[in-house]
């Protein structure tokens, strides 16, 4: 017999750890998203997992974009109809919110659009 009792135990523990790691990797798959804000032709990029509040100057006045708990929302804008605030929170890849009168467009983009190849050994 080449295996001793605790060899089997350690192999099982190892298998369970690998499975947990796999589940963890899968579930965090789409969490690396970015918030792209376009204001009058200029683009700004913010990671979705960091809480931040940014103020942008559009053609009418200022638009405030809040990133909180993995969601982005326009919480204040200088427009008259306030449709952008009614859209509320966006958090999925491809979702967008906009304040058209102020020419501010907020989009969630996935990691495949922004991934940079940094490994070179």
């Amino acid at each position, binding site marked *: 017999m*080449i295996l001793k009792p605790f060899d089997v*135990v350690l*192999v099982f523990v*190892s298998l369970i*750890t*690998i499975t947990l790691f*796999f589940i963890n990797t899968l579930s965090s798959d789409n969490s690396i998203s970015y918030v792209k804000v376009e204001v009058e032709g200029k683009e700004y990029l913010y990671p979705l997992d960091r809480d931040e509040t940014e103020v942008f100057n559009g053609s009418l006045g200022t638009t405030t974009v809040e990133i909180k708990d993995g969601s982005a929302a326009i919480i204040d804008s200088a427009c008259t109809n306030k449709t952008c605030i009614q859209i509320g929170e966006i958090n999925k890849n491809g979702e967008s919110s906009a304040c058209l009168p102020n020419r501010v467009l907020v989009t969630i983009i996935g990691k495949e659009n922004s991934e940079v190849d940094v*490994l070179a050994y």
Partner: protein
Amino acid sequence: MHINRNKIISILGALALFLSLIEYVIPKPIPFLKIGIANIPIMISLILLTPKETIILICVKSVGASLIGGTIFSWVFLYSISGSLSSGLVMLLLKRVLKESVSMIGLGVAGALCSNLVQIYLATILLGSGAKFIGLPLLISGLITGSIIGHLTNKFISSSKWIRSILLN
């Protein structure tokens, strides 16, 4: 016959360096995917040497192998030494707790898992959370190579006259 203990460290260290040189020659599909044959002497040291001497051997192996590979002043060395030390500590602890109810197969699997997890964790700190996507093939290959290396070490320990003569002393 009295065997000088420092001599055992240097013999095992030389063996580890030789094996890590062979490791460099073997082509790898992914840069980090190693077989880990250089860890055979370290696993042998678990039964021949004291824990302190095993740690010294691990440092000798990591520094020596990085000198040969030219990676000693790069991040690769940091991955190498942290992985080796953590797996060494885990194997020492398991060997001390489980004694004769565990063979080198279990220790090799546990050591490979620990070394890989530490290196993946380091990579996520240094390169961002995307680095853990390379982790799964590493962990699975670690399970396979760990058990193969463990089996080889078992064979080596049970058939080596040199090891038997040291253990009898």
